């Protein structure tokens, strides 16, 4: 397990402890178990995050759709998307690493699992993001999403004819847009120090 996911055994121990906490000593976690994390309540995209844990595409299973419950191995699989970059990675590994992380994010946007982020899905994302802001109307969120989609179109497709329909952002387009941002260094979470916090929950 450790070598396939490139997580150290110490980290596995920490995560195992956390898993046991969340699952209340059961072998699997269901969606309801995530409700026991108080701080997650305030997160505007809470739904999407929880969803991501059960998304079969992230769990590297061949099928599609949502799993009902996940065991520790699945939990680790999800967490491995957030492991930090290692010093001795070569170009190809780095590229794969980056693609994996971006795929994880892509799946969070693409809620109907059709491989494309359509305008409606994008609107959904922006609405959720701005849902923490009570003064903002839905219309504004919608126009923002439209505007952002525009920018995406202009980056990915360039000049469009007047009657061309922009279907949605595919994974390749998604990669193009995140090109400038070095996700490999930013998308990581330290799996240490779980001990000190464990007793707070």
């Amino acid at each position, binding site marked *: 397990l450790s070598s396939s996911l490139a997580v150290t055994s110490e980290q596995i121990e920490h995560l195992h402890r956390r898993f046991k906490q969340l699952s209340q000593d059961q072998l699997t976690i269901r969606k309801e178990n995530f409700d026991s994390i108080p701080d997650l309540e305030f997160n505007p995209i809470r739904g999407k995050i929880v969803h991501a844990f059960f998304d079969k595409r992230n769990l590297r299973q061949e099928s599609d759709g949502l799993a009902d419950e996940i065991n520790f191995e699945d939990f680790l699989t999800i967490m491995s998307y957030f492991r930090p970059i290692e010093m001795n990675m070569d170009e190809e590994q780095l590229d794969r690493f980056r693609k994996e992380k971006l795929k994880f994010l892509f799946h969070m946007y693409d809620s109907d699992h059709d491989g494309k982020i359509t305008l409606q899905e994008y609107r959904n994302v922006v609405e959720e993001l701005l849902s923490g802001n009570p003064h903002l109307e839905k219309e504004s969120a919608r126009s*923002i999403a*439209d*505007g952002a989609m*525009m920018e995406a179109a202009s980056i990915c497709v360039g000049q469009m004819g007047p009657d061309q329909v922009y279907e949605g952002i595919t994974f390749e387009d998604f990669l193009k*847009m995140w090109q400038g941002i070095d996700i490999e260094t930013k998308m990581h*979470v330290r799996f240490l120090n779980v001990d000190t916090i464990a007793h707070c929950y």
Partner: protein
Amino acid sequence: PGAAAMGTGTPPSPSGTAFEETRLHVFTLDYPHVQIPFEITLWILLASLAKIGFHLYHKLPSIVPESCLLILVGLLLGGIIFGAEEKSPPVMNSDVFFLYLLPPIVLDAGYFMPTRLFFENFGTIFWYAVVGTLWNAIGIGISLYGICQISAFGLTDITLLQNLLFGSLISAVDPVAVLAVFENIHVNEQLYILVFGESLLNDAITVVLYNLFKSFCQMRTIKVIDIFAGIANFFIVGIGGVLIGILLGFVAAFTTRFTHKIRVIEPLFVFLYSYLSYITAEMFHLSGIMAITACAMTMNKYVEENVSQKSYTTIKYFMKMLSSVSETLIFIFMGVSTVGKNHEWNWAFVSFTLLFCLIWRALGVFVLTQIINVFRTIPLTFKDQFIIAYGGLRGAICFSLVFLLPPAVFPRKKLFITAVIVVIFFTVFIQGITIRPLVEFLDVKRSNKKQPAVSEEIYNRFFDHVKTGIEDVCGHWGHNFWRDKFKKFDNKYLRRLLIRENQPKSSIVSLYKKLEIKHAIEMAESGMISKVPSSVSLSDYHEGKIKPLSPTEMENMREILTKNLYQIRHRTMSYNRHSLAADASEKQAKEILIRRRHSLRESLRKTNSLSRERPVLA
């Protein structure tokens, strides 16, 4: 005729004395009357003209950093004055430097510091600043003492304490020099913030060590209690400085809450409060640099929202102008002060000083990085370490500190001055000139300046939330956790108190609004406004509502637009201190506009769940 008429005017007769009657002067020259302001103006004018001169040959600033050229100009000037008057030219007064020339530069740097990146790397920066400077100071001091013991060099009269003092003042990395050199080479933000942050924070340690060793040199016996007092002093100096800065930053933010009737002097408050924090800290012998940095960083967020757009622009430009002038003056003065009779050359001392500075810096960075890499998620590579070590430039701070040494206690003061000058010249010239080709040779990651885009902002926010969420699931209190907590506290208490019209701010919304305004202005300018429906009425299409815009609604919209013009800020990460980032290109805005019209048409087709009535335009 005029002169004659003047000449016959009756002068008042002096009572009883026999000196000549003075005719009324047509034309008088009274230099002493205006001497001081005249000379100051001439210096500043000269500095600015020199800057123009450099940029005339456009390739020059990219090869040689401006600081070098300015020092050369200073040297030239110093040489002229020396030759003409046969005495040493005016040495840069340390008071002038510390009280007038240094604060604007630090203020400018602190105000535009990327706070998020700074706090993410705070541990590393602090580690380098404190432990690194200590390491350098003590290392250089002790090794120089070892050299001094060798009687062949004629240096045996320099005591250990004097060497330690010298080590402490020469080990400080200088923010002015770092800024001057790094701004042209555009390394990635992480590296920049490490070197620059270190140069700012090490002021606390430098102040403490300098004063500590200076007093030790003057005391006859040193007890253990004094050493503990020194350590306690460090904490007081550092933390005290920061507290003063934060306190005054909040006061400034609070003041600007009420300034909406007197917009014209709003910028003044920003400058006054920051300068006040600096000199208050200096009054208590705390770290002025840390105070002014803390003040600027605290003030920045809240002032931006309270202050009008014009005031904000004024603040930005004035700050950059002041810091630019200060920096130029500093380097020219350094050049001028070098020429003169206050030197004493000693091959051994000078060369070993230089050698030890380089060796200890390199060693220090290497060793410290090995330790700190254990705690960092992204370890610093060897390339990073090299740039950090190489970027440890010395500058005007150690120059001024060495001039402040009391000559009674330091009979070899001139020797110290010479050594410091050699080190500064070496770092500024040699390291400053070669760092750019080295950065290219080593292929260090550079910063990529991009245009702000709404989608990117959305991605970044989305990403932050994902990270925070995952951290919550893991139960790990990462950086995101603390930042989140601070944000909540900020929103609940601070913003309500310090900001006048508190609207919960979303970076996405502000950026979007900004782009929208740009579109609107574009549309109005190109006369399209009658033909293209505004976004408001288009979204009415989506809802299936028809709302002809009544005059009151138009008025409201116009009011909203103008009000938003005051609220929107373009958040720039201004690393280049001499030019401000240009606005996003017009072409992109136009493209976006055209696209949106298409996309909205498309989305109309796709979302066929709407029941659309034929829109009736009033």
